[in-house]
């Protein structure tokens, strides 16, 4: 049981990384905004600080970078932006996900592989 939840959380983390790259690719965001956007897209289980280690991981892998910018009505804060490597990683994720999504949907519906 524990193994299963571990596996599912590992899988979610991988997908989340991709989703974070997609969101950041649209516009630079800061941590709280990122959390809000994910929640709005229905990632209700993504709370409790999960995104922070992921943001750091993406930053260490140089897929995203932090930049200090003035926030609306507040002081300077760190916004995350995609790097060039991040753009290709995001595109690769979208491609992989689309393929996986199609396969799983077909499998669920019972269709034969074309």
């Amino acid at each position: 049981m524990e193994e299963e939840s571990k596996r599912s959380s590992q899988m979610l983390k991988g997908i989340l990384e991709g989703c974070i790259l997609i969101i950041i690719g649209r516009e630079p965001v800061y941590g709280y905004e990122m959390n809000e956007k994910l929640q709005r897209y229905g990632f209700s289980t993504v709370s409790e600080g999960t995104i922070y280690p992921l943001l750091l991981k993406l930053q260490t892998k140089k897929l995203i970078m932090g930049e200090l910018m003035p926030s609306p009505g507040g002081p300077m804060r760190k916004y995350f932006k995609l790097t060039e490597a991040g753009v290709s990683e995001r595109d690769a994720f979208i491609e992989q996900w689309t393929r996986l999504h199609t396969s799983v949907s077909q499998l669920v519906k019972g269709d034969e592989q074309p």
Partner: protein
Amino acid sequence: MNAKQIIEQNRKLQKELNEENGKYYTDLVAYTRLKGSLLYKEQQVEEILLVILQDLLDAQRAGIGASDYFGKHPKQVADAMMRELPTAPFLQQIRYVLYVFGIYALFTILPGLVFPDESFDIGALLVSFLITILFVKMIVVEIRQSIYRETGRKGKFVMIGCACLGLASIVVAKILLPALWPVKLEGALGIGVVAVLLALATWFTLRKGNEFFRPFLIVAYASGVLAIVSRIPKYAAFWKSTGGLLVIVVWLAGSLIWFFYRSYRQINRE
């Protein structure tokens, strides 16, 4: 922004947290700084902490408490974050040890140099350095674990116990071990070494943030001055006479009394 500026901004912003969120964040900061500063660059750790603080403030404004936003297991999240960071160079990792040992060394070497005829044992200093490494490591690990533990009181005892045991080990090692690497610091060489140590002690204690150690400077200077004058050949005979020894005893005792008085006032003030 450099690490100091980030810490300053963090300090200002923290005031905006309400009591409950403030407590939550202070614990997270203490844990992350202690654990992080041993392994990672200060700048990286401080950047993360500021990002989290700004987000917690956003959450607070939206009516979400820190533990709802950041989770009921902040220690695990902090650990997960730190696992993603590249580690700092080795020298930075042992800077706490250097810090503690530096203070210990500066303020114990000088009194030991008052009598030029007695040799100074570099070996003993190295042994105490090794003991310091061991105990600083133990204390830091203990502080780190105690932050997210319910039984805070026991942790405090363990910590004070560790510090006392460390100090006792250094004293016992000094008594039991034979002189490992004795050197004589006479004449101009001795005066030079004392002057360098005094300069280091002064530089260290006058640095911002080190105000706590200023009273130690009294002992350092009192023994430093003695160590220098006792090495001037013209007066050498006097310091070996009963009168000279009496002056040394009264001078050092006076400096100790002054030191205790200043420390007492400083502690009261803080």
